[in-house]
C-alpha cells in the first residue's frame, strides 16, 4: 500500500486528455446538437432553428425553466427530490394573479412567492426534521397543491388585470434587448447568486457535504436536517420566481399552469449531470441541462416530432443519464 503508487496518475498535458468530460461533456454534446440541427436546417429539414426570433424565444423559455431546474438541483444535491414543483407553480401563480387583482401588483407578487416559499418550507420540514421520505412528501404535496390551486380558481383562468398591470408584467416578461430576452438577465443574475451560494458560502459547502455523505457531514458539525430544509425552501422560492416570470410573460394563468413541469425540471437536472445520489452536480450543470433540454425539445418540434414523442425522448434521456451516472459510480 505505497502511497505514491495509489495516487492517480495525471495524464499528459494535452487539452483533450485534461478535458473534464464529467463536468463539461454535456456542453460538447449541446454544441454538437446545435451544429447538427443547423446542418439539418441548411438541408431544409428544419425551419427557422438558428434564427434570431426562435433563439430569443428559446432563450426566454430556458431562462424561465432555469429557476425550477436550479431549485431541483439544490434538492437533488442533498439527495432529495421535489415532485411538487409543477403543482406548486400552479398554486403560486394563481395566488399571485388573484393577489395582484385584489391587492395590487407588489403585494400580489409577494403573496405568490410567499406561498411557494411556505410550501417549500413545509416540504423541507417534513423531509429534514420529521424525516419522511422526500418522495412521498413531495408526491402528496403535488396533489395537495394542485387541489388547492384548482379550488382556488374554480377552473377559471385569471387574466383580468388592468392595462397598467399588464404593461408592467409584460415589460418584465417580454422585453428584449437586441434580441436578448430580459428574463435571461434575471436568470443570469440568479445564476450568479446561486453559484456564489453553492461555491462560496458555508451553506453551499454544507449542501455538498450533506449530499455526499450525510453521516460524515453530521460528524463534521453540520446540521444536516437544517441544510435539507433550506434546500427545499430554495426550491420553493425558485418555483415562486418561475411562476412570476410565467405570469409576466403571459399575463394570465389557471390552476393547471405548471402541470407536470416537475418532470421537465427533473430531466433537465439529471441530464445536466446532477445525480440522484447527491453531492455531485450544481448550478452550472443545471444551466447546461436547461439549455440542452430546451433546445433539444425546440429542435424536435421544428423537426415535426409531436408533443408526446418528445415526452418519450425525455424519459429515455433521463434513464440514460441515470444509468450512465450509476455505471460511472460503480467503477
Amino acid at each position, binding site marked *: 500500500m505505497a502511497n505514491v503508487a495509489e495516487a492517480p496518475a495525471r495524464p499528459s498535458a494535452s487539452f483533450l486528455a485534461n478535458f473534464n468530460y464529467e463536468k463539461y461533456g454535456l456542453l460538447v454534446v449541446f454544441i454538437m446538437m446545435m451544429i447538427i440541427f443547423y446542418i439539418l436546417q441548411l438541408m431544409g429539414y428544419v425551419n427557422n432553428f438558428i434564427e434570431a426570433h426562435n433563439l430569443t424565444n428559446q432563450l426566454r423559455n430556458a431562462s424561465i425553466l432555469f429557476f425550477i431546474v436550479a431549485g431541483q438541483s439544490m434538492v437533488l444535491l442533498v439527495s432529495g427530490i421535489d415532485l411538487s414543483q409543477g403543482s406548486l407553480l400552479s398554486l403560486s401563480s394563481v395566488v399571485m394573479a388573484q393577489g395582484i387583482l385584489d391587492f395590487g401588483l407588489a403585494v400580489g407578487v409577494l403573496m405568490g412567492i410567499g406561498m411557494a416559499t411556505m410550501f417549500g418550507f413545509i416540504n423541507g420540514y417534513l423531509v429534514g426534521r420529521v424525516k419522511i421520505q422526500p418522495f412521498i412528501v413531495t408526491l*402528496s*404535496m403535488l396533489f*395537495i397543491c394542485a387541489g388547492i390551486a384548482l379550488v382556488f380558481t374554480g377552473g377559471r383562468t385569471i387574466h383580468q388585470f388592468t392595462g397598467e398591470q399588464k404593461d408592467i408584467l409584460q415589460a418584465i416578461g417580454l422585453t428584449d434587448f437586441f434580441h436578448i430576452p430580459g428574463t435571461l438577465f434575471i436568470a443570469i443574475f440568479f445564476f450568479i447568486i446561486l453559484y456564489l451560494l453553492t461555491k462560496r458560502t458555508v451553506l453551499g459547502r454544507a449542501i455538498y457535504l450533506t449530499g455526499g455523505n450525510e453521516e460524515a457531514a453530521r460528524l463534521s458539525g453540520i446540521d444536516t436536517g437544517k441544510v435539507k430544509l433550506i434546500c427545499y425552501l430554495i426550491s420553493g422560492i425558485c418555483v415562486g420566481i418561475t411562476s412570476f416570470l410565467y405570469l409576466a410573460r403571459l399575463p394570465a394563468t389557471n390552476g393547471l399552469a405548471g402541470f407536470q413541469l416537475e418532470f421537465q425540471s427533473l430531466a433537465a437536472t439529471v441530464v445536466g449531470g446532477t445525480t440522484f445520489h447527491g453531492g455531485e452536480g450544481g448550478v452550472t450543470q443545471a444551466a447546461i441541462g436547461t439549455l440542452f433540454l430546451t433546445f433539444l425539445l425546440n429542435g424536435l418540434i421544428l423537426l415535426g416530432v409531436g408533443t408526446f414523442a418528445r415526452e418519450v425522448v425525455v424519459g429515455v434521456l433521463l434513464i440514460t443519464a441515470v444509468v450512465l451516472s450509476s455505471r460511472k459510480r460503480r467503477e
Partner: protein
Amino acid sequence: MSAAASMESEKLILGYPVKDIPWERLLLISAFVVLMIFYTFATENFLTLENFVNVVRRDAWLFFLAYAQTIVIVSAGFDLSQGSIMSVVSVMAWSAMLHFGFFFGFIIGLGIGLLCGVINGFFVGVVRVYPFIATLGMLFIGSGTAQLWTGGLQMGGAREGATLPKHVEEAYVFLAKGNLGPIPFTFIWILIVLATMWYLLKYTRFGTYVYALGGNEQTAISAGINYPAMKIAIFGIGGLLCGFAGLLLSASVSAAGEPRLGGGDQLLQSIGATIIGGTHIFGGRGGVLGTTLGVFLIIFLVNGLNIMGIDTYRQQIIVGLVILASIWVSTLREQKN
C-alpha cells in the same frame, strides 16, 4: 443484560408485544369507523348496499393497483410508473380490440402491462438502478408512448370512424360493469386476485422470498435467492396487475383508449392505500389483506365526500392530507423505536 428482564415481563395482545401494538393503525381504523358513522348520519345514501356495490364496482381498479404496489413495496421496492402503465395498456388494448376482438385485445393489454413491469424489474434487478429511478423513467416513457400512440386524443367514443364494434364494446363494458347473477363481475375479479395474491404471498416460496427480500436483503441473497429473477417477477406481477387495473378503469370510464388515464392521483392513492393498510414503507411487513382495508378506507372517504357534494379538487386535497398524515404518524413511530 436488560434483555432478559424485559422479555419476561412482555405480554402479548393480539399477537403483538405490548410495546409493538400498532397504535397508529388502530387509530387509523377507529378514525375510519368514526368517519363512516359521521357519513352515515350526515348523508342519506351512504350506508346502503347500493352505494357500497356502486363504489366498489367503480373503484375496483384501485384494488389491483394497490395490490401491485403492495407486492412491490413489501419487497423493498417502489413503483412510480403505475399510472403510465395504465395509460399505455388502455390505448394499446383498445387498438388491439379494434383489430383482433375483445379477447385478444384483453390479453394483449395484460401482456403490455407485464412487459412494462418486466422492464422495470430488469432495470432494478439486473442493471441495479434504484427502483425509484427506474420506474420514474418508465413513467415518462409509458405516458409518452400512450400519448404518442393516439396523438393525445381519446380513442373511440368521441372520435368518429374508429369505434369498437358493438359486441366488443359490450364485452369490454361488461368487464367492469357486468353482473354475474346478482354479484357484480368486478367483485369476482377482486376476490380472485386477492385470493391469489394472498396465497402467493403466504403459501409459496415466492411469497416468502418477497418478504425476505424486503426484510433483509443480504440474508435473502445469502440464503440463495435469485435477486434479479425475483425483482423481475415482482415488478412483472406488479405490471400485470396495473395492466388489469388500466383495462378495468378504461372500461368503466368510457370503454375507450384514454392516453391520460393514469395521469391523475391514481399513484398516490395506490401508495396511500398500501401504507394505510399497514405495509411498511421500507419493505418486509404488510400484505394484501391490510391493503384491501386501506383501499376501502380511501374509496369510502372519497365516496362520502362525493355524496356530500364536495368537488374533486377538494377531495384531492383531503386525500393528499390524509395520506401524508398517515405516513407522518407511522414515521413518528419508527423514530421512537
